[in-house]
């Protein structure tokens, strides 16, 4: 058994710095590269892509990336865990196999694929058996949006990834797997942690939580002493250097920018935190009130003392459904009296929308530069502000009403208050809203499937 395993995070979300994973592979020693591609509504985008093209439906960026890094990964034995498979894990794996062959690596790469997360085709059957898939946030039964569902995927935990790794997979591709499982699985595989070793499973889960947002734990978006965080232009993405006993060090490659210190790690630990006593994943329940941090030298923070409890009997389901349409229009008003002008323009716009008899579920006006983020806490806007942006959004079920709204923004330039600009982009776009419906399903309903393929 190795004394430590270094797991490097390469993407904090789908669309993060494209070169970050390459730099993780080339910038120093690592054992695993972990890539998190799936945000809450990503699956529905992929479902739509697959409906148009049966070969699509996964994170396409993953393929050219693997083309760049696969030779180095094979040479140095670096393994990859990625939830890049979206709603077409097999298609994603086929694309990676094609890349491996193209690079002359046929027979040298084993690819593990994890499926069984997609329950879209089982929804009616589940509902008919009384599994209601109620919305975890508001308690509504799924039947209320049944006709609008676009995708339904269970968050799978680390176990099926571990199985793929145990069968010699070098690249493990999943659909909707948890971000934390992508980090925990390699640790279970390497260190042989037992399925009921709750403290260690919790430790691996928390290591995953810290690095899953990429550079957000290594200096990015860090409020503490932000001015002095060095060289964010060349920010180093995080690495979890884990030991068999469940302790780990958060660090980054030498010579990279950014900063790993206790404040930067604390900020990330609290990110998107609910009840810190119970961070629930398919693998365990982690207790964030047991985490201890210790300075371990420059850009190194040691994490220890973590305790966990048994996993629950449920898995979380991520369901997406169509929820109407929205559009957002903006205009910029300049000095003098920028805020007053933006307010006047808003009144004019609202009066015109009323006269048109348009109905919206929600209309929101914000004044960017005055109060858009901090509302009344920002105090009375400065009378001499150089500019204020008027930003008006509408949401509703009737697409034509939203379309009509988009035609009312530009005319304000010639028919409203003066010193207005900022309309180079044309009419606002009408967007279809795909909303998120979190639910729970008994674990016994879900059977993850693992296959290992040779390139």
């Amino acid at each position: 058994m190795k004394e430590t395993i270094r797991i490097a995070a390469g993407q904090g979300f789908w669309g993060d710095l494209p070169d970050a994973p390459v730099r993780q592979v080339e910038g120093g020693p690592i054992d695993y590269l972990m890539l998190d591609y799936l945000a809450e509504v990503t699956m529905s985008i992929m479902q739509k892509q697959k409906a148009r093209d049966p070969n699509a439906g996964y994170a396409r960026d993953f393929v050219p990336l693997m083309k760049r890094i696969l030779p180095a990964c094979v040479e140095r034995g670096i393994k990859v865990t990625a939830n890049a498979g979206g709603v077409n894990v097999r298609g994603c794996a086929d694309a990676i196999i094609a890349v491996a062959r193209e690079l002359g690596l046929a027979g040298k790469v084993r690819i593990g694929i994890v499926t069984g997360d997609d329950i879209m085709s089982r929804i009616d059957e589940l509902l008919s058996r009384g599994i209601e898939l109620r919305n975890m946030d508001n308690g509504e039964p799924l039947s209320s949006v049944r006709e609008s569902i676009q995708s339904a995927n269970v968050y799978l935990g680390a176990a099926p990834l571990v199985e793929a790794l145990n069968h010699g997979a070098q690249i493990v591709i999943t659909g909707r797997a948890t971000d934390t499982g992508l980090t925990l699985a390699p640790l279970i595989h390497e260190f042989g942690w037992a399925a009921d070793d709750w403290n260690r499973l919790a430790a691996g889960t928390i290591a995953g939580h810290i690095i899953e947002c990429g550079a957000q734990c290594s200096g990015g978006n860090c409020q503490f002493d932000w001015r002095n965080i060095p060289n964010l232009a060349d920010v180093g993405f995080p690495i979890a250097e884990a030991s068999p006993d469940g302790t780990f060090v958060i660090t980054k490659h030498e010579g990279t920018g950014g900063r790993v210190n206790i404040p930067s790690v604390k900020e990330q630990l609290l990110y998107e935190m609910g009840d810190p006593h119970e961070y629930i994943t398919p693998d365990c329940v982690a207790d964030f009130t047991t985490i201890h941090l210790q300075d371990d030298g420059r850009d190194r923070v040691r994490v220890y003392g973590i305790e966990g409890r048994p996993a629950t009997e449920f898995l979380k389901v991520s369901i997406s459904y169509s929820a109407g349409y929205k559009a957002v229009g903006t205009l910029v008003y300049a000095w003098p009296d920028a805020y007053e002008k933006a307010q006047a323009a808003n009144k004019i716009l609202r009066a015109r929308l009323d006269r048109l008899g348009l109905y919206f579920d929600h209309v929101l006006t914000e004044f960017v530069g005055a109060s858009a983020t901090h509302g009344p806490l920002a105090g009375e806007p400065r009378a001499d502000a150089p500019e204020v942006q008027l930003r008006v959004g509408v949401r509703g079920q009737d697409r034509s009403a939203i379309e009509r709204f988009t035609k009312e923004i530009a005319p304000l330039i010639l028919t409203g208050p003066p010193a207005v600009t900022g309309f180079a982009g044309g009419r606002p776009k009408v967007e279809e809203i795909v909303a998120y419906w979190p639910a729970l399903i008994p674990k016994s309903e879900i059977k993850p499937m693992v296959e290992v393929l040779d390139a």
Partner: protein
Amino acid sequence: MRVQLVKLAHARSGDKGDTANVGLIAMRAEGYPILVREVTAERVKQHFQDMVRGDVERFELPNLGALNFLLHESLGGGGTLSLMTDAQGKTFSTALLRMEIEISDNEARKLELN
């Protein structure tokens, strides 16, 4: 004396549906008991006024010298439903740091704030 939270704490916020969370972290260990005493769920609810329509919940993490707040019904429906610039609640962190609290001169000295 009155002091703004930004002088003794840092913060990060994020979203879960229509709920924003704000992690409030004491910059120095001595500051944590002051945060526990002064930055109660009620005070935070008051501070945010109409920006938070639901309840405020508070959790203590003495091991990190931090408090976690859940601000329910504060993101205009949350996720893709929200029309807000900050639909993900990313700036609720600094909005909380605007809050003023009362500390003793002795505490101010310990935190080197005077």
